[in-house]
């Protein structure tokens, strides 16, 4: 956001230092009462006060938020390791529905030579028969 700055933007004078004190802040916003905080985007700012001012300008100047948070990006700890987040083996048994049984049942029927039973007309609902 700042690396394309025109030459006449006197950032050293404006920020009173080496000009490298700007850093990214992540902005979270609540659109209306009762909504969760959602990530809105980010702003560059030298401190929390200006980060909030800029967040206000970027994410609520048209009255589109009722609550804003800013978090220094450096204070966010992240995890993006696919071995940890997307393990390669089947983890479907951890899902609320349990294992998907359809393929295993079909294989067992084929082995025993039985046809797939017709859906029952009463009792339990047909939708659960193959689970």
């Amino acid at each position, binding site marked *: 956001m700042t690396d394309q700055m025109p030459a006449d933007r006197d950032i050293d*004078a*404006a*920020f*009173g230092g080496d000009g490298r004190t700007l850093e990214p802040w992540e902005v979270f916003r609540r659109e209306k009462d009762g909504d969760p905080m959602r990530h809105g985007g980010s702003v*560059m700012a030298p401190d929390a006060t200006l980060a909030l001012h800029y967040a206000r*300008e*970027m994410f609520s100047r048209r009255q589109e938020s009722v609550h804003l948070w800013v978090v220094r990006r450096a204070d966010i700890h992240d995890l993006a390791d696919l071995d940890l987040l997307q393990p390669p083996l089947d983890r479907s048994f951890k899902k609320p529905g349990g294992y998907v049984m359809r393929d295993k049942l079909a294989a067992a029927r084929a082995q025993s030579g039985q046809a797939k039973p017709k859906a029952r007309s009463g009792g339990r609902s047909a939708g659960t028969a193959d689970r």
Partner: protein
Amino acid sequence: MTTARSTVAPADPATERALDGLILSMADDEFVIGFSDSEWTGIAPILEEDVAMSSIAQDELGHARALYELLAVVRADGSTADSIAYDREPAEYRHAQLLDHGRGDWAMTIARRYLYDTADGARLGGLAASSFAPLRELVDKIRREERYHVMHLTTWLERLARHEGEPRERLVAALEELGPDAATVFTPIDGEASLVDAGILGEPMAALEARWRATITPIFVGLDLPMPPPGALDGGRSNHGEAFRWLWGEFTSVRRSDPEAVW
């Protein structure tokens, strides 16, 4: 604005003239600083500040528009917000001489805005309980927006003041240049006493100036900055110089290119 004139205009002609002068001075202040600060659009120190300063400038133009519209209702002579804003000669504008100083560098812009916004805050405070309902209601809305302006400008004033070297030097130089003209925001309005008597203006401008000084003194002392010296306010809203003639040429250029155009 749909307010009928009969419900807004003071009965007494002298008070009405004074009210006209008060609203015009406020509208011209907001118009001139709003236009002048909009020159930062595209060239402010960083993109975020560019948006912030442009947004603040836009707020001021919005306040100016609302005040000119109110003035058009009070005048009831067929004038409109646009005709009042654009169809005057430079000498007829009644903004404070503080705003005749150009935007200069960033420190100059911050100093000018800080001085103006705090002074405007004191003036708006003097209208918060105005007996003139349309102005009181408008001022109530304007004050809620000005609160953020003062927050933002105070942050910048502190930031520049606390960084020794170039930022502080530029800020101090700007305050020394602007200081003698800062109080021109409180130039007495012609017929001001009648506004105070009618309860339209809570206190004379001189009393509002004292409130303003009391508000900013602790900030200036805390940051060791030069306080605006007391100055003679005669002609504080007239005698606009060459810098304003240039700005006027800019902000009226489109209007003058086709005065009959309907927008």
